C-alpha cells in the first residue's frame, strides 16, 4: 500500500497561498476605490489594476480547480467525525463557488457597463474580452454590481470561518491542518 497522502499537490499549495494573498489585495483595492475620497485619476487607475488583477485571479482559480479535480487530495484526518467531514467538504465547495463568483460578477459588471472600458491585463497585448451580448446593459450591470459586493461580504465572512475552523481544530483537537497546505518535512 502506498503511504496515505499527507498534503495537497504542490501546485494547489502554491495557488492556495497566492490566491489568499491576492484576495487581500482585491478586498483592499475594491473597498478603497469605491469608498475612499480620492481623485478621479487615482480612482480610475485603481479600477484598472483591480480589474486586471481580478482577471489573473480568475485564471488562477480555474487552474486551482483543475488541479483539485485532476490530482489526489489528502484524506481528512480520521479524528474528524463524519458530520465534521461533511461540513468541511461543504464549506470548501462553498468557498470555491464564492471565489469564482467574485471575478465572474466583476467581469459581467465591467462588460455590461455603459463605459465599455476594456480590461488590459497589465500589458497592452493582453486584452481580456468583454462578455458578449451584454454591452451597455444597465440592469445587468447593477445586478452584477450587487452580486459582486454581496458575494465579497459573504466570501470575507467565509474566509474568517475557514481560518476559524483551522484554529478551532488546532485548539480543540490539536490537529495541525495547515500541514495539508504546506510542504512539511516528516
Amino acid at each position, binding site marked *: 500500500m502506498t503511504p496515505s497522502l499527507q498534503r495537497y499537490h504542490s501546485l494547489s499549495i502554491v495557488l492556495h497561498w497566492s490566491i489568499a494573498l491576492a484576495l487581500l489585495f482585491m478586498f483592499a483595492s475594491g473597498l478603497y476605490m469605491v469608498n475612499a475620497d480620492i*481623485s*478621479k*485619476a487615482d*480612482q*480610475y487607475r485603481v479600477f*484598472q489594476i483591480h480589474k486586471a488583477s481580478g482577471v489573473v485571479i480568475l485564471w488562477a482559480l480555474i487552474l486551482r480547480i483543475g488541479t483539485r479535480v485532476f490530482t489526489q487530495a489528502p484524506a481528512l484526518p480520521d479524528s474528524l467525525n463524519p458530520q465534521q467531514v461533511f461540513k468541511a467538504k461543504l464549506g470548501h465547495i462553498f468557498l470555491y463557488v464564492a471565489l469564482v463568483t467574485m471575478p465572474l460578477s466583476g467581469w459581467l459588471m465591467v462588460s455590461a457597463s*455603459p*463605459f*465599455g*472600458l*476594456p480590461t*488590459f491585463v497589465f500589458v*497592452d497585448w493582453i*486584452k481580456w474580452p468583454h462578455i458578449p451580448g451584454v454591452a*451597455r446593459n444597465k440592469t445587468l450591470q447593477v445586478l452584477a454590481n450587487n452580486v459582486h459586493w454581496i458575494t465579497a461580504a459573504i466570501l470575507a465572512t467565509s474566509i474568517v470561518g475557514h481560518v476559524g475552523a483551522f484554529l478551532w481544530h488546532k485548539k480543540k483537537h490539536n490537529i495541525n491542518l495547515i500541514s495539508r497546505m504546506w510542504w512539511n518535512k516528516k
Partner: protein
Amino acid sequence: MKTPVNSSFLNRTFSMGMLMSFFIALYLSLATTVVQAELKSSHQSGSVAFSGQHAGMNFEGKFERWEATLTLPPQSNPSIIATFYMSSAKTGDSIYDSTLPEFDWFDVENHALGKFVSTKIEMTEEGYQVLGDLTIKNITQPVNFMLIDSQDQLSTSFGINRLDYKIGWESDPDAEWVSKTIFISMVINK
C-alpha cells in the same frame, strides 16, 4: 547691304527670345499662383490633433489620416474642406484607443469620416477668420476659428462640445469623467 539685314535679323531673334522668356516667366508665375491658390494638406504634411481631460488627466491624440484642401483669400471663392478618418484617431493609450472607435464614441463602423466644410473665410491681420460646418457622426454643427498664418504654417486651435456630436452621450453625458470641451488643433505646413 547684307550686314544691316543680318543685324536686324539678329535683333529680331533677340527680341523674340525676350518675348518668349517673358511668356514662359508669366506662365510659370501663373502656375505657381495656381498651386498657391489651392493648398493641399494631409497627415503627411501637417497634423490634426485633439485633446481634453479624462478623470482629471490630460489626454491628447491625433488623426493619423486626414486630407484638407484650402483655397484662401484673396482667391475668389475661398474654401476649406477637410476630411478625417475617424478610425485613425490615436492617443497612444490602449484603453482610450480601443474605446474611441466604439458605438458611443466615434462609432467608426457607421461613420467612418468626419468632415469640415467652410462657409465663410475672411482675411484678418493674423490670418483668416473661418466659419464652417463640422460633421462628426453625421451630426453637423457650426464652428468658427482663427486660422493663424505664420511664415510657413497655418494653424488653429478651437474647442468643441463633444456632446453636441453625441460623443460619449450614453457613457458620460454629465462629463463626470471626460471633459465636455475637446480641443481640436490643426497645423498645416505651407
